[in-house]
């Protein structure tokens, strides 16, 4: 992840802003669930409309604890990596995976109930858009410009006059 993009400063700052916002969202979701032991994804998974056998298996008594903990772990990994600007490409991949799972369980397809969503969607919903935004961040990492990765880069490659 040493590659950085050749981009205008405004463009780079825009990507950093996008990274911070998405990281913020993921970390808050993860921490909130971490400190709320009553939370579970059981209802969301068990009512899945696509890949129903997979999601129902995940929501079963034997798997749900693991599924919940993995979800929290992944949410926090994504949030921390994006906010701190370190391993952000790995974080982006985790985030895309999570969002696609959320999407597949309750896709915005014609005929789907889309219960619990606050907007109106046809095929494309916010999960898919956020996943696409993470794909952009994966392609254009900014950690070497803004984030812990830049510290590492400067420490390992000090440049003197």
């Amino acid at each position, binding site marked *: 992840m040493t590659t950085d993009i050749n981009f205008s400063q405004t463009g780079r700052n825009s990507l950093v802003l996008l990274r911070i916002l998405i990281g913020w969202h993921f970390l808050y979701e993860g921490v909130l669930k971490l400190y709320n032991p009553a939370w579970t994804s059981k209802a969301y998974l*068990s009512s899945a409309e696509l890949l129903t056998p997979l999601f129902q298996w995940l929501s079963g008594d034997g798997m749900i604890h693991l599924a919940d903990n993995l979800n929290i772990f992944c949410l926090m990994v994504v949030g921390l990596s994006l906010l701190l600007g370190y391993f952000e490409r790995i974080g982006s991949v985790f985030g895309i995976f999570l969002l696609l799972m959320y999407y597949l369980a309750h896709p915005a397809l014609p005929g789907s109930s889309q219960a619990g969503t606050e907007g109106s969607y046809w095929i494309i919903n916010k999960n898919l858009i956020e996943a696409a935004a993470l794909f952009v961040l994966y392609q254009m990492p900014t950690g070497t410009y803004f984030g812990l990765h830049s*510290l590492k880069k400067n420490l390992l490659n000090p440049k003197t006059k």
Partner: protein
Amino acid sequence: MSEDKKSNWSRRDLLKGIAGVPIVGSVWWAGASKGVNNTQARDSILKTLNINASPPPPSGPMAGDPIRIGIIGFGIRGPHLCRALGFGQKSWLASMAEAAKKNPKDTRLASFLEQEHLNVNITAVCDLFDLRAQDAIDSFSTDEVKVQRFKTHQELVESDVVDAVIIATPDHWHAPIAIAALQAGKHVYVEKPMTHNIKETYELKDVVEASNVVFQVGHQHRQTQSFLTAQDIVKKNILGHVSLIQANTNRNDDNGAWQYPIHKKANPNTVDWKQFIGSAPMVPFNAEHFFRWRKWWAYGSGLSGDLMSHDYDRVNCILKMGIPSSVVASGGIYTHKDGRNVPDVMQVNMEFPDFSTGSSQTAGKEKGMTMVYSATLGNQYGRTTAFMGHDATMEVGNSLTIYADGKSTKFKEKIVSEEMDPNVPIYQYDPASGSVDGVTSATAKYFADKGLLWTYRDGKRVDSTHLHIREWLSCIRNGGTPSCNIKEGFEEAMTSHMGGLSYKLGRRIDWDQAKQEIVQVEGYDLDEALLEDKEKIV
């Protein structure tokens, strides 16, 4: 970037490197605070409510010799009761396998196959339609146990091939068959309503009380987890004084309006018409009367006995409030003018002026309750069953939800401190949140939502009727009294008859608690009025 900027690891670079750290700290703090606050509020509310939602211990073991069951009535409910016993018709098994193949969410066959074995044999059947009786014989006979057909219930109950009978006939046959079976020493499970008129309600009560066999009325919701939880909620006075209960029927399809299919092969040669008529006025063979008997007072009990009896007992099993002191009913045939003489829209107001669920206010301030049953067979909007108390409202069906009342005395402090929000449930029990159920018709959904079809034990969906029959079988094997015995059946039947009478006579019907009888209405024989072949008498 200039060379100069690159070469200096400036303070700015350091800030850009660690700028995310305080954001992480802030977001973490915000999420953790909210999570901890939510958890504390939830724990505090649950501690305050102290509701026990654990399932009851299962009824006793099914050990010993198989109990030999006779099925009397094998129309629509009869086969369902047989499935609850563990016996599925061949045609039903095939259709369920097909349904599960088409829709993986349809778990009806899987639930049936996972059902506990109750150690019973179906040894006899009595149905007045030859094809149905033969269906039972073909479906349930095994190499070891052949199902015998009896042409009359009398022969069946007196035979030595049955220990117990399940009665799923038209309403006008419930009590006569139950009485005959009890007198023959056979255990009885009878569908609701327990009786068809007032006189036989007393007769059945006397016979049950004089017998030493086990008697159960088929109000299977008594096994539904949410209703058991609701009993604990009322016992702990969480709702405060309940002044009003609303219960409803909303159905809008042929099946829900009792427009059942008529079998093409039903005719005077294949149906024992004379026996079907029984105590009802004789009319020439009429296939619609035979298959859609719920539409006439002569054989059925209308909305009051057929469906209100469910709702009344759903409330009575939670509150144990007994028979109302008075009943006022109204309604009409407004959506199905098809020759029926029972109403398809009906409202029944039941008064309990001396009853109270408890109070959080000054002693003596609150007393009395009304239960309103409101029904239509022309609309299926899902109105909930609500227990409306001074401190909280409880909605009960297969799930259970409690909302604190904004003006509650008991929860005043928690509402002022915003720990409780009257618009957000303070308690919710939803056993289905962990699984998906296959419901295939509007009427099935109506029953399922009311907690009449299935419940959950250890996270698994279980047929409520299976548990209700199991309880009856356990009492036969291990002793004890079933949850819907003659006292509960008597209360259900009398209340239903008061509803039907009030509708037909167009006036208030009173209950004399001391004499345990419906107060006579001058100029009428109440049983004659109840059964008379007219929609309304007055």
